[in-house]
């Protein structure tokens, strides 16, 4: 009897979690400055040294991936397509494991996590989970003046 109650509670909690997660997954949002502990990532500026790759002239789509990540592949495809479509935009994919300092500093907890950087390397948008192509293009609209 107790076990059945536990099972029911787990299923209910997981359903709520799954619905919330599905709605937020891949949504590129603007973070308010200082909204997160440590000042948040909106104040963050990333340069070519940290990324190990050149920034895009107008914007950079930075993707954190890991070895055990099914949606990372679809995200790679989406961001690669957008970078190929818009001039001055590059797609940079980093293995989260090989950049744990950066992962901690930016508070990346999931893969894929996508950061949209403007031409100066400032983080202007961020998504956890695979973003939709239309949303990435819309986010670029805010990153590119």
């Amino acid at each position, binding site marked *: 009897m107790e076990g059945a109650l536990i099972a029911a509670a*787990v299923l209910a909690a*997981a*359903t709520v979690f799954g619905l919330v997660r599905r709605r937020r997954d891949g949504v590129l949002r603007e973070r308010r400055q200082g909204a997160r502990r440590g000042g948040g990532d909106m104040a963050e500026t990333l340069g070519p040294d940290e990324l190990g790759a050149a920034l895009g002239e107008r914007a950079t789509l930075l993707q954190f991936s*890991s070895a055990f990540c099914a949606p990372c592949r679809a995200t790679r495809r989406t961001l690669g397509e957008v970078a190929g479509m818009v001039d001055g935009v590059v797609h940079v994919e980093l293995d989260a*494991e090989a950049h*744990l300092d950066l992962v901690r500093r930016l508070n990346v907890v*999931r*893969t894929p996590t996508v950061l949209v950087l403007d031409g100066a390397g400032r983080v202007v948008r961020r998504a956890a989970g695979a973003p939709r192509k239309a949303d990435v293009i819309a986010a670029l609209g805010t990153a590119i003046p």
Partner: protein
Amino acid sequence: MQVDPRGQRFAAAVTTVVLIAVLVTGSWALLAAQAVVFAIATLFGLRYAPYGRVYAVLIRPRLAPPRELEDEAPPRFAQGVGLVFSLVGTAGYAAGIPWLGNGATALALAAAFLNAVFGFCLGCEMYLLVRRSTPGKRAGSARVGDY
């Protein structure tokens, strides 16, 4: 190696039903059987995973070919996470510590259910969290093999 993602969802659904049965009955033997299923998938690959075999033999022939295949590594890692929880749970029930059995089984159930219904791989996401909290500035990928 690539796998049909629908097979993963099917296997997760069967796992969900089994784990609910474990919670209702408190049977350590049933949870141990599920641990064996996890172990086969983790050690030998999803190609040999029992629920995946059922899917391949009974269900896939009736469906259209998958739109897209998926890399095997993430779900296989998640099966390993499931193995750990089911072993802890089995030990809990067998040793007469029901909260341990129930707790471990409940966590495994949540992960299996999220995978079956929403396609989320909770076990996969634990990977980065575990790596993040592991101290060390420049940890290479050597530890990947440990899992």
